[in-house]
């Protein structure tokens, strides 16, 4: 057995692989001590190797992992496991967004990551949801009902939040605001996809892939097929485990 650990900024994902098959996975909040949390999460497994990826990969390497790979490579490997032909991956996680282009054989050709700010990430959605008083899953469901004629024009999270509040105070329907917030995230993603280049099917991974409004909007904007791994947030951890086999 090989275990992959993806130490993300918000959550830690663990995937256990045997003979190139996913046999188990676990997901938990990163908490204040990601090192200890990771150790908790791999308890009970008896892996031959542990491969770490994600923001905390070097921390893991210092303490318990045998090797590390970047999130880019991990997602490439993980997505290919679910969809062996795929050439384009978008990953929208807690703090960052990535777009990865692969060649036919699955080698990384090109990739992009968002810059320092939170615009276009899961964190952005989360902040806007809470300023409207929604939980994350409610927020996505609500956005599905929105009309789509309202726009959020600020990229900066802080300004976008005040824009949301002022829309609310002007009596705009919460569903329409929710939709506007999702549109803003997806437009950022579409611009990144355009810069990297994409094929007619895109694999959507990361926590935000669980959000039906985000998935629908991406499909609409690009007129492409979207493939969703199940669950979408363990792709990185799975890729790391596969790397170790």
């Amino acid at each position, binding site marked *: 057995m090989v275990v992959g650990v993806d130490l993300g900024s918000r959550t830690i994902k663990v995937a256990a692989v045997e003979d190139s098959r996913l046999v188990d996975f676990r997901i938990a909040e990163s908490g204040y001590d990601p090192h200890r949390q990771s150790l908790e999460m791999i308890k009970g497994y008896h892996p031959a190797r542990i491969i770490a990826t994600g923001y905390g990969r070097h921390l893991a390497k210092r303490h318990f992992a045998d090797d590390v790979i*970047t*999130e880019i490579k991990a997602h490439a490997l993980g997505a290919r496991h679910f969809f062996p032909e795929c050439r384009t991956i978008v990953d929208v996680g807690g703090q960052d967004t990535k777009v990865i282009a692969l060649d036919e054989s699955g*080698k*990384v050709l090109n*990739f992009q990551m968002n*810059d320092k700010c939170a615009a276009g990430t899961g964190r952005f959605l989360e902040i806007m949801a809470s300023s409207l008083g929604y939980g994350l899953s409610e927020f996505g469901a609500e956005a599905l009902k929105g009309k789509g004629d309202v726009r959020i024009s600020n990229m900066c999270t802080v300004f976008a939040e005040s824009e949301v509040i002022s829309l609310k105070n002007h009596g705009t329907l919460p569903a329409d605001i929710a939709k506007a917030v999702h549109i803003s995230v997806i437009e950022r993603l579409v611009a990144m996809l355009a810069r990297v280049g994409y094929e007619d099917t895109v694999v959507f991974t990361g926590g935000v892939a669980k959000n039906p409004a985000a998935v629908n909007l991406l499909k609409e904007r690009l007129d492409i097929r979207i493939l969703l791994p199940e669950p979408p947030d363990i792709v990185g951890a799975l890729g790391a485990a596969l790397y170790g086999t």
Partner: protein
Amino acid sequence: MSSTQFEIKSYPDMWESLGMDVARFEKMRCVLGDVFQTTFLSQENRPQRMDYFNWIVSEIHGGRIREILDAKKEGRPVVGTFCVYVPEELVIAAGGICIGLCGGSQGPIPDAEKTLPRNICPMVKSAYGFKVAKVCPYFQSVDFVYGETTCDAKKKTWELLNREVPTYVMEIPQMKRERDRTLWFEEVKDFKAQIEKVTGKTITAEAVTEAVKIMNNKRKALQRLNRLQHHNPSPISGKDVLLIEQIAFYDDPVRFAEKVNLLCDELDERVKKGIAVAPASAPRVLVSGTPMAMPNWKAHNLVEKAGGIVVNDESCIGTRYFKDLMDENMTDLDSQLKALTDRYMKIDCSCFTPNDDRVDQVLKEYRDSGAQGILHYCLQFCHTYNIEAIKIKEACEKAGIPFLAIESDYSPEDIGQMQTRIEAFLEQIKG
């Protein structure tokens, strides 16, 4: 030099006499010393003859300053520069010294931001900050600062800088047509007159011939180092080469060339014996883009920490500074100044339009250096390089060369993200 003792030497009395903020500067000096220790001295298997360059760094705020002050006493001009588009030969012909002023550190940026807008490049803010905070002994020592019109941030900042220190501005054309060449020729003549005014002496053709030889020798030494850097496995780290190239901008050119050649002799030996600083399998990266003023070592450091090696630097700190030599056979001033003009017009700074020569040059250097990928490094708000990166990216895509563009400043806050990108880029190269 034992690696635990490294210290940048302190000269408080001299600094005091230069009107510096000594207390503040003391802190910066210590920080630089520590960073130098962890970034450079901790490298394994460094060439022995890096010792000279370590020593130069240890005397960065003392020994070299003394030399400059002595030159000034003898009436030799000392010019502070920010660009490779300065006809250094003319300064040297007047017995003078060119000092590349740094502007590569985060430290004085808050000082600059008290006046300057925040959204201009960190190089300009850092440089301006060094002056207004009085924390750069070079800035305090120069006769005048040479400014040029390569970008908007610079050319407008010179107007403000001129209030703090005399700032002489040359107009760099931004196209390369005949009329631009004529303009630049006139500018070169004016620059000569400016130096003569500062020194009260006339620059002769013989002096220019001598100066051209000195600069050619220095550039040849750097070319030789660059060729050795291309060897696989690399006998020297890209970080060390970067340091030497940065020192090239403020060390005495004759002594510097000699020391670089001595180092190259050692590197020749290393190549013969197969002594290397990284295995032949280490991913080989060419860095291209905005020049990295001292002490901006971020990109090279991240590449090499992640197991790659920088084998070439196409920037003004790197090959753009030394790739072109000058004809040494000119004997009259007019043809010398024309030749000088021609030499400088070959520099492919991104301020030029069109600038396809640079794209070709980057690809050529990629092939010559045996690199396996191109890292385009650009300072935030440096629009010309940032936009030109698109053309380099397209050329790379066409040629199947792995390419990564990074935009950054001097602050440490994006190091995690840069590290992830660079590691992923190295994985991409390894396949």
